């Protein structure tokens, strides 16, 4: 166990019937970190989170949450937005949030101010007396998020928080997550949509078939999985791009819908290569391609599996 970690799992395994949902998982999340757990549907993300929350219990392995052996002992310091989230449809918004605040042991005198402040903060002031069933899905998701943070938790666990949201609501929710992180909360969130993780994570954990396949800071991943590819679009569409492979840095050139992808030879310096290309053909666009988590994931799992999960990982981005 790592002392001082907000969260640590050691050798956690969970089996349902013949299926291993989580397989010997080790994970340590330092206090104040923003971790993303990514992987396709059925990878074991939700089961892992439920084990962290002590909603499910591991068959084997140890869990430590905020220094306690079980989340049950630290529930008042944890905020949780489950994937399968619901509300009491007939309950009024303020009553629901107040109820959740009281269940999280918020002092009675603080309940009403926090509810009012929270609704104001997420742009839902004035909805206090509305029944939950009267809200749109995006508004409801904000209320649910608010219920998860109403007690200002030290650890915030979000399971697929952006699922089903339109781009505007997703952006608003992303900003709220980042606000909580700035406040000092440790954040762990799961998603099967890689771009969401790329946007806000500091550190990424990839899970595939219950096993951890990657556990690295985002920067390190980018360095490690540098595709050494340059995206190039000539200023003159009729420019002689076919001559580029003759340059010593360039391995091959492939036409894409918006221009060309130039693959560099191993050992070549991308900065020098970009200068040479720009000198040879005036560019309208010239940039170093950044590795996408999706590509990283597909490279790690490889083979047939990659083909199966590719569409799923892109699913909500398209």
């Amino acid at each position, binding site marked *: 166990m790592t002392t001082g970690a907000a969260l640590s799992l050691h050798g956690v395994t969970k089996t349902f019937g013949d299926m291993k949902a989580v397989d010997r998982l080790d994970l340590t999340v330092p206090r104040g970190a923003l971790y993303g757990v990514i992987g396709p549907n059925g990878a074991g993300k939700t089961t892992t989170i*439920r084990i962290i*929350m*002590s*909603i*499910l219990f591991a068959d084997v392995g140890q869990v430590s949450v905020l220094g306690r052996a079980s989340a*049950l002992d630290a*529930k*008042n310091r*944890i*905020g*949780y937005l*489950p994937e*399968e*989230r*619901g*509300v*009491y*449809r*007939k*309950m009024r918004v303020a009553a629901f949030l107040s*109820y*959740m605040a*009281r*269940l*999280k*042991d918020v002092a009675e005198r603080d309940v009403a101010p926090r509810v009012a402040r929270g609704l104001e903060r997420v742009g839902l002031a004035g909805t206090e007396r509305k029944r939950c069933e009267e809200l749109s899905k995006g508004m409801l998701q904000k209320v*649910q998020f608010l*219920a*998860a943070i109403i007690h200002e938790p030290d650890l915030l666990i979000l399971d697929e928080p952006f699922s089903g949201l339109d781009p505007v609501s997703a952006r608003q929710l992303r900003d709220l997550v980042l606000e909580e992180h700035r406040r000092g909360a440790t954040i762990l969130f799961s998603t099967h949509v890689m771009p969401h993780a790329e946007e806000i994570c500091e550190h990424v954990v990839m899970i595939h078939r219950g096993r951890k396949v990657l556990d690295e800071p985002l920067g390190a991943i980018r360095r490690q999985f540098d595709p050494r590819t340059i995206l190039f679009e000539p200023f003159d569409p009729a420019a002689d791009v076919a001559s580029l492979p003759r340059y010593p840095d360039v391995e091959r050139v492939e036409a894409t819908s918006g221009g060309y992808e130039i693959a560099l030879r191993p050992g070549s310096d991308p900065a020098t290569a970009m200068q040479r290309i720009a000198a040879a053909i005036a560019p309208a666009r010239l940039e170093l391609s950044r590795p996408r988590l999706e590509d990283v994931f597909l490279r790690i799992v490889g083979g047939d599996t990659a083909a199966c999960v590719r569409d799923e990982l892109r699913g909500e981005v398209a």
Partner: protein
Amino acid sequence: MSSRLRKVGQIALRDFVATAVTRGFIIGLLITPAFITLFVLVGPRLFSQRNFKAQGQIAVIDPTSVVTPALRDEVNPELIAERRRQNLERNLSQVPAGMRQLAQSGAPGALDAAFGQIPDLRIVERPSAADVQQEKEWLRQAEPGAERHLALVVVHADAVMRPPGGQYGGYDLYEAPNLDDRVDAAIQQSVRQAIVAARARAQNLDRAQIDDVLAVERPPATVVTSEGERPSAGGLNRLMPVVFMVLLFMGVMMGGQTLMTSTIEEKSSRVVEVLLSAVSPIELMAGKILGQMAVGLIAIALYVVMGLALLLSFAMLGLIDLWLLAYLGIFFVLAYLTMGSIMAAIGAAVNELKEAQSMMGPLMLLMVGPMALAAPISQNPNSMFSTVISFVPPINTFAMLIRMTSSAPPPLWQVWLSIAVGAVAAVGAVWFAAKVFRIGLLMYGKPPDFATLVRWARSA
């Protein structure tokens, strides 16, 4: 108060408010007593026989020639009215004072009206030697607008004077088709009374004196208890076991059913996982059980208060031992914890109400069983059967309450032994339910069978 207890209290409060502070619940709670009141007020008017009037002609062939005059007296409207008044006074002297006062305070003639209208029967005397077969034809004759021919009475020749060494004769009765039973009863009673009067006269006996000799005033009984004396409630105390059992059944069903449906609702709306981020499954279940127990208690308390007010207004409060209400509370808690926690487990295990129905079948049998056994238990409260069933959970609570409210309550040690058995059963049921609840809440898909529930309980 510890954090966990406070959370259980919060859940209980929310569940109670969400159930009890709703228009539907309040209407549902009041609708039963409203229906009973309506039935009491309107029922007698709806089902009253006062509009019925036996009316028509009765032909009599009377070879004794003394029965017919006596029969005319019997169907005399004034004499019938006088006889009714005397019967009424005799009956009222047996009922509790409160009800007697209520009856006597009614509108003049109200009770006469309640017995129905006085028959209007006319006697048609036929020749004593008339041919019975021919006279039967008279019954078939119906003239539009004329009085209906109701019956032909053929008095036996020895109906009034007993032949030496023999028995008294009687009479034969022939009736028109589709004669109302009440008319038949009125005719039979009148003929019987007429023959008795004729026989008395033939023996030179004064009928009034005979009636006086036979009449012994039946005094209202006084119940002597260690606390003092009180008037007997007559047959009303036979209702007590039924009333208490229905109260217990209603309280358990009301709390248990709502507990089950609210659990299903929380599971299907996926709010349950949000709650489980704040409380443990056992805290959630405990809160829900307590909240709905309060709902059941409120319902029982309301009906008990209404019942007591009714008894008080009739000066019949002595009809029940107030200690029984404390036992009703104890048995309710035990029965509710046993049945209610199993209902909560069923609610957690299924995905929708329809799936719960099949699992509720055996439980409903256990609940309704005591209703069917109420009569044999209350009639023989200390029989082997009644005694044994008082210690068999989960129906022991119902059986013991029936015995306690019967005319021969069981000894106190049996009551407390039954309570102890009920407490053990309740703890077992809550333990089982907690195990199933914890696993079932996050299980979706095919609903489990009973064997699966047992497996969950063993594995959790």
